[in-house]
């Protein structure tokens, strides 16, 4: 099954290589990996999705912790979380097709970010399956180019992982969990 990890690492040169190299070396197959800044300048945050069974998933976590620069690892696969992917899709949109494409984009709450005589570029943010859905309905018109960021994820509610980035024993309580808005 697909596991989603949120990994906090020290913001130092080479840390991304260390994490990526670990997955390669242990033959764990990365599905997606994103990395970016956090509210703390000394901490970077990765969202990694990996296809792994239960035992593998636990070992991935243990192996990540073996990296000296890794601060905190959370497997949020089964936790209430907001998961977002961003895609830009360039669709062939001739004069006749244009209104259909615009209509589809609005149904998916996607935005048109570039208009050219023969194409439209649509930006969509959401869970992966929502983007997959838009992609599927756009395909008949001709997808010229597509790029996706890979997912970023965050637990729901007030619980904050970075607060406990130096104390691994943080547990989320029931009150921490909020609901989709």
């Amino acid at each position: 099954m697909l596991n989603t990890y949120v990994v906090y690492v020290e913001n130092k040169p080479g840390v991304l290589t260390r994490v990526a190299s670990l997955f390669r070396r242990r033959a764990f197959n990365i599905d997606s990996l994103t990395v970016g800044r956090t509210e703390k300048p000394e901490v970077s945050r990765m969202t990694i999705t990996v296809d792994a069974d239960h035992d593998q998933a636990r070992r991935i976590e243990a192996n990540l912790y073996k990296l000296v620069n890794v601060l905190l690892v959370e497997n949020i696969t089964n936790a209430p979380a907001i998961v977002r992917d961003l895609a830009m899709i360039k669709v062939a949109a001739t004069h006749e097709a244009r209104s259909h494409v615009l209509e589809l984009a609005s149904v998916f709450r996607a935005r048109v970010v570039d208009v050219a005589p023969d194409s439209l570029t649509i930006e969509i943010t959401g869970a992966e399956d929502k983007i997959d859905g838009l992609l599927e309905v756009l395909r008949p018109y001709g997808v010229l180019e597509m790029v996706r960021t890979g997912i970023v994820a965050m637990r729901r509610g007030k619980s904050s992982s970075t607060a406990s980035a130096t104390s691994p024993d943080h547990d989320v309580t029931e009150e921490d969990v909020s609901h989709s808005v």
Partner: protein
Amino acid sequence: MKDKTSIPGKSMTGASILWECLEREGVQVVFGYPGGAILPAYDALKHSKIHHVLVRHEQGATHMADGFARASGKVGVAVATSGPGATNMVTGIATAMLDSSPIVCITGQVGSKLIGSDAFQETDITGVTLPITKHNYLVTHASEVARTIREAFYVARSGRPGPVLVDITKDAQQTTCEFDWEAAKPQLPGYRPDLSPEPKEYEQALELIHNSKRPVILAGHGIIISGAMQEVREFAERAGIPVALTLLGIGAFPAAHPLNLGMMGMHGEAWVNHTIQEADLLLAFGMRFDDRVTGNLKTYASNAKKIHIEIDPAEINKNVKVDVPLVGDLREVLHELLPKVESIDRSEWLDSIDKLKGDAAVRDIQNLPDSGHLYAAHVINDLWRETRDGDTVVVTDVGQHQMWEAQYYKHEKARSLITSGGLGTMGFALPAAIGAKVARPEAEVWVVAGDGGFQMTLCELATIVQENLKVNIAIINNGFLGMVRQWQEFFYERNYAATPLLNPDFAKLGEAYGIRSMTVTERSQVVPSVRAARQHDGPVLINFRVEQEDTVYPMVAAGASLHEMIRRPSKIVETADDE
């Protein structure tokens, strides 16, 4: 010196800070080889009390640091220049990584402005060694040297130990900055070497132990690293549990102890492997269920519950699924368990193991008639008889002689056998023995190496002479890459492709280095030659010309079940008789 330099604000070069920090970490000796990018550090060595051992190849420096670490339990240090100097260290670093040996490797790097330009002798050594170090660093400023060295030593020796590489650019060595030891404390917010089990897990473990009728302790290298020899002994004695050893666990539990079964695994004795297969509980103490000890995982100890005491959480359930993991330092975990372990009479189980031994347990190759042939097992067994009473360290290479050493040299004490287990690095023995002798000058150090592996690092004979080290060298010379030949005999229809060796006269070679050397071809000469070597003040090399096509038995073929052993054919009576 310390008083002067501990004054905050004192300005020093990165090179001087390096040696100052090594001294403060307790380093008295380093093993190294100079070159362009590390020259500033070598220049600054003149102000340091640290002794530098000049090696003949950087691989040797890493094995020496490794041997030093394994003999003493302290961190070993190797130094090399950039590029080829650094890449020559790779094999030694990987060796230390797989056997959890704490070493710190310091390499010079081209100037920070040149990094990435493919400059002369530039190699991305932190990139190269990333998967074979516990951690590594690239230092580009003198101001980073002190903290990095402190962190490197802390990471190398804490938790599950391992190699750490510190790559220091030439300009970081040359430029000056303020040195303040106190301010350079390690800052490793994500590093947690000190885990300990939950109370519930202890209870679960105790329940399994007390309910077990046929338990076995699997004693690994972690016992020695943790210093838990006494605790393991108390545990085994109190609970009446027999102990099987991994190759690297040899010495963790006394060979002569009635509960010691001997080495397990591919070349373990039949009764040891049968005991494991028949057990209802395995207590894995600081070992990692390597494929060489488990054989086929599907059939491995299939009726046994498993308790795994291990400091590295990533080892839990890696190869073998365990019922109760106790993640923590073995010694501390055993301290917690010991008062609660009940004394249980397991004589029935111990008697049944004795029956498994059959004739094999009472064999004694020394008592077999001299057939005129010289067998490696004889040499090693005689060496043991002669050196058993002293503080002896045997350092082996890799191959047949290594397995015979494990079978026929009875180790009573920890850190008395040093061998490359995980990586199986040929060429390890000679340099590692140099490191061991430097770490423990009072100990009697013997190299036991094959003719193949010996030739991989024999250049270090010069280091032995230059350092005036009393190291004795036993070459088990069968004119073959013996273990590979054995596999070819068993699994490749005796097609001895590329395994026969045309060797130099090792005794003449030794003499050329100024080392007293002799050649032994008959059994009757073994003991006299060992005695002569021990009596001689300087290093001695003995070339034992042994039976060419001898075989290590028993053997579990790679991938076979642990109880499916290739046993000794009855014709070969010289080595044993456990049919």
